[in-house]
């Protein structure tokens, strides 16, 4: 089996590495570009899901900077997503009468999200590890509550009523509609193809920024902080500034994703940004392999594939089997209700068997797997 595979792929491996790289990229880009057409021709009806998955992948790439590169455990990342979405919503909701152009709004969302990244980061980034995780968790819980309550805002300073019952976020009813992007005569609407290409463009931009930063001066500083903050400080890396940059760049990606998501869905509610979402994004990063762009993208897609395709198909199969075998419990089962259970199981399995993730970066692999000599030394010692 292995030798057949070997001989089949021989001509491919004979090519120079550079050419193989170019061909891989060309094929990849071609497939990605032609996908909407294939979806239409074969009537797959998957374009909507794929677009949503890409939003989550962008979030995972943003979190990868914070968790993967800088090693700051952030449990409230969905809050920045919410802030991005609500910035877009508030700036385009007809009731407010602002109605900005989407192309300006998306940058506003990025800036506002980054600003909140700095705001939450400044007082908390002196904390290390677990303590930061708790603070970000609280932040993630607070933001949806604040959004829910900003539907009826009154500010009173002493005897002066500055703001009286101002409806900023429309509370639990959410904001709808949200302004859509427009390119010349092309108005984004129910046709999903433009949305797909827009998110693809944003995704490419985010992945590009990730890639460039990884081996830059800043990327090295992040890695150094992750390895040993004290030594990094003594070596001239400013921990506060460097962490703030990680936090705000990561948050700004969530701002991008948020603005897009709000515009595509045309409605945003506080309940769309629960703690579960933060955990899901974190799982995507950890499963794929922290600090590795390819790993994070593939890991994110795997989780979403599992969530959206595998579970629903498995449900259909289980129900059919249940009917055939006359087992009532199986016939009525809905496995998608069990998604968090399966999630937990998968995470436990991955963490036990492959703690560095499925596609780890070299540094992460070294961190978890030790060196070639080290495990041997431990074994001989015991």
């Amino acid at each position, binding site marked *: 089996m292995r030798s057949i595979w070997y001989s089949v792929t021989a001509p491919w491996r004979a090519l120079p590495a550079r050419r193989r790289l170019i061909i891989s990229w060309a094929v990849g880009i071609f497939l990605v570009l032609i996908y909407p057409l294939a979806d239409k021709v074969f009537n797959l009806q998957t374009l909507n899901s794929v677009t949503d998955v890409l939003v989550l992948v962008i979030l995972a790439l943003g979190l990868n900077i914070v968790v993967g590169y800088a090693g700051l455990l952030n449990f409230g990342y969905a809050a920045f997503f919410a802030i991005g979405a609500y910035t877009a919503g508030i700036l385009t909701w007809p009731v407010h009468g602002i109605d900005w152009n989407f192309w300006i709004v998306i940058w506003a969302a990025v800036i506002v999200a980054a600003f909140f990244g700095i705001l939450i980061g400044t007082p908390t980034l002196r904390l290390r590890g677990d303590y930061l995780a708790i603070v970000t968790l609280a932040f993630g819980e607070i933001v949806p509550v604040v959004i829910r309550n900003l539907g009826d805002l009154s500010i009173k300073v002493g005897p002066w009523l500055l703001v009286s019952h101002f409806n900023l976020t429309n509370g639990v009813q959410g904001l709808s509609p949200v302004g859509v992007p427009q390119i010349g005569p092309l108005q984004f609407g129910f046709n999903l193809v433009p949305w797909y290409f827009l998110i693809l463009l944003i995704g490419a931009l985010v992945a*590009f*920024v990730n890639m*460039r*930063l990884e081996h*830059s*001066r*800043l*990327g*090295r*500083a992040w*890695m*150094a902080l992750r*390895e*040993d903050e*004290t*030594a*990094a*400080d*003594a*070596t*001239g*890396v*400013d*921990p506060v500034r460097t962490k703030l*940059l990680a936090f705000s*760049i990561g948050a700004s990606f969530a701002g991008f994703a948020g603005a897009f998501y709000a515009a595509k869905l045309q409605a945003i509610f506080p309940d769309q940004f629960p703690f579960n979402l933060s955990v899901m994004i974190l799982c995507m990063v950890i499963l794929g392999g922290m600090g590795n762009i390819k790993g994070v993208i593939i890991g994110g897609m795997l989780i979403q594939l599992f969530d959206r395709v595998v579970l629903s198909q498995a449900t259909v199969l289980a129900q059919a089997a249940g009917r055939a075998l006359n087992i009532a419990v199986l016939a009525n089962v809905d496995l998608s209700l069990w998604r968090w259970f399966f999630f937990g199981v998968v995470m436990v399995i991955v963490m036990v068997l492959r703690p560095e993730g499925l596609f780890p970066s070299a*540094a*992460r692999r*070294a*961190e978890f797997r030790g*060196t070639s*000599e080290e495990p041997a030394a431990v074994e001989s010692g015991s």
Partner: protein
Amino acid sequence: MALLEARKITKQFGGLTAVNELDLVIEKGSIASLIGPNGAGKTAFFNMVSGFHKPTSGQMLLDGKEIGGLRPNRVTARGLGRTFQNIRLFANMTALENVLVGMNCRLKASWVGSILRTPDVVREEAEARQRALKLLDYVGLGGKDETLAKNLPYGSQRRLEIARALATDPTLLLLDEPTAGMNPQETEDAMVLIKRVRDGLGVTILLIEHDMKVVMGISERITVLDYGTKIAEGTPEQVRANPKVIEAYLGKGVATGTAVTEPVGTQAILETGRR
């Protein structure tokens, strides 16, 4: 000319005075040592110089400018490099990356520039790489640039830490027990390297060391601390002959018995008593 000058510097941890009104001057271009029994305040002093502790009172001047209370990375930017008693490398980064992190505060690339990869950034990165490779060569780690720091042997890790500190372009280098845990050959090599750094790069060196062979062998000036105060200072010969030093290391009775009558015995005590 004084490069580092401590004026009545004091550090208290609650009720404990780790360093008590210490005056210390390190001349530019010298190799100086700080010795003393455990808990004498040597590392506390190092931590005050490098910014990890804020002095309770007193002044700390580097090149005539106050550095007391500055954050460590700011002190590093002012020209101070240091190594740690227990090696603190970035274990899962390569040797080259470790040195490049050391250059971080001397590089100018902004994050926007790094994303766009502007010509300035590209040139700066290439130059930094070249310099980092040269530094690795300099400390004797040529060809090890792609090895992860944690995979290097112990002696090489110490060397890498020195290379990383040198990458910050220091005028003063603090070495906290640079030969701790080394075998005699590695110790010998380390001493050669330390001398070479001073002679070749003109970096002033202040070290904490317990190995008296190293201290006496390379220091031009030695300061002895005990209970946070300076009890002796001078050339290796002067310190060796100082009865107070023996007293600090071995107790009062021994000091009055041996040091005064037989100065040669003092050296033997200093060399063996500490290990």
